[in-house]
């Protein structure tokens, strides 16, 4: 196994072009497990921790702020520096591993691994995030909805690296919830993210760890857009929450595995959907001046 240590993005892209088989490593929280247990013997490792360009985030100028989050920014920094602007992503980041893991793991790594159970994917799907990928041929932005192509597969070409994620700043309530056997160090049994956009009377919902890829629950989203009493103060009807949960469960395509059964995942996601909708709606009520 060769070890490649670029110190600039240009060097990293040149190395990846020359050695498409090189496995990128940043936080190491996925790749190192595979190496330590000999599950994978890459011909080369491409160490991205020396590439400073990847370790920064910035905000686009203008009122409609968008965050460009460098692929190498660890979760700890997402939580402390971007919790207000990207609440959904921060929530998901808080559930990743443990403090030690969050000090090293990155959203770029989550995308590179593209595990259906990756914690940040549902949030990226509901916030309309776009994945910035680069190669010596140039840079392109891939909508998160088109990024996940299969179990641990993504839309990257062999010579490309994930360089950043572009996320609009939250315009409404965002929620994330995850089921695991304990509160830390778990791979999600299933996870769920929800974003409401009251100005546009729209909603997005996405599931994790309950289909070959993270995916949006489109029918459930449409249902919310049509049925939510936008602008009307007061709690939501129970029947509405239940129907939303059912539609989310219908969007899943889960399997039985060591972490849980398909039936359990379907059931749990319906529960998570109801709960997060309640939280998001209450959050919205508190923000809305009409019910102050």
């Amino acid at each position, binding site marked *: 196994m060769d070890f*490649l240590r*670029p110190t600039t993005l240009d060097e990293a892209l040149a190395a990846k072009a020359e050695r498409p088989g090189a496995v990128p490593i940043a936080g*190491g929280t996925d790749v190192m497990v595979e190496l330590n247990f000999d599950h994978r013997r890459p011909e080369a490792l491409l160490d991205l921790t020396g590439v*400073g360009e990847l370790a920064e985030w910035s905000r686009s100028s203008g009122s409609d702020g968008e965050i460009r989050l460098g692929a190498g920014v660890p979760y700890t920094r997402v939580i402390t520096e971007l919790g207000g602007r990207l609440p959904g992503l921060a929530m998901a980041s808080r559930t990743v591993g443990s403090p030690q*893991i969050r*000090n*090293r793991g990155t959203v770029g790594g989550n995308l590179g691994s593209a595990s259906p159970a990756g914690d940040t994917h549902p949030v990226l799907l509901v916030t*309309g995030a776009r994945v910035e990928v680069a190669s010596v041929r140039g840079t392109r932005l891939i909508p998160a909805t088109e990024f996940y192509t299969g179990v641990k597969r993504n839309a990257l070409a062999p010579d490309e690296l994930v360089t950043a994620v572009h996320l609009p700043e939250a315009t409404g309530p965002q929620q994330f919830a995850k089921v695991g056997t304990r509160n830390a160090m778990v791979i999600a049994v299933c996870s769920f993210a929800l974003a409401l956009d009251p100005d546009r009377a729209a909603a997005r919902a996405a599931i994790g760890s309950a289909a070959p890829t993270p995916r949006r629950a489109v029918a459930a989203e449409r249902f919310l857009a049509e049925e939510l009493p936008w602008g009307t103060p007061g709690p939501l009807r129970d029947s509405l929450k239940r129907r939303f949960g059912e539609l989310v469960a219908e969007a899943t395509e889960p399997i039985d595995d060591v972490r849980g059964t398909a039936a359990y995942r379907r059931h749990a996601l319906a529960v998570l959907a109801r709960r997060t909708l309640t939280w998001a709606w209450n959050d919205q009520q508190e923000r809305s001046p009409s019910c102050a």
Partner: protein
Amino acid sequence: MRSDEPMGGFADDALVPADGEHGAEAFMPTRRTVLVSAGAAAAVTVAAGKGAGGAAWASAAGDTRVRTVGAGESVEVALSVNGQRRTVTVEPRVTLLDALRERLGLTGTKKGCDRGECGACTVLVGGERIKSCLTLAVMRQGAEVTTVEGLASGDELHPVQEAFIRHDAFQCGGCTPGQIMSAVACIDEGHTGSDAEIREWMSGNLCRCAAYQNIVAAVQDAADAGKKVRR
């Protein structure tokens, strides 16, 4: 919800150069290392001198060739371990944990699961707690590493070590060095406001003897003692 706005030029925004920790300056130019004896079981390496090799790299300005350590070659990794400058010569596949234990003889840091789950290998790198089994030694070139051996000053134990003894916060002791390193960081981060907060922020360290009750008490005690000292 949000349609795709044009993204002209945004991708290039604010690309900020590396800061100190991830900086390249500490990386030693050991692509020039040479396998002296191909047949030898242990790869014997001649690390290139800092000066000569460094000059070679500097002259490669504008060249996008990347520093590479070939398979089977070893690389010299300079670390500051517990305040002392240490150098290890390792193959790139060697984890920081193995470098500490097997090359530097610092066996205080334990190998529990080797997959980042148990926390027994927790060390501080640049003041941050990380799992040393999930990082390669070569990726931490120039880093400041603190292991459990570096906490006491002489015979005087670190307050967290003392608190662990006072509260009997262990049985077999296998997880204890990791627990203590994690506790030092937990207190430093200010996550000791309540038992629940301590449990949450110590959640990356497993104890197979389930001494959690006493570990939480020890962390709380050490945090309180620290506050008193500061006053």
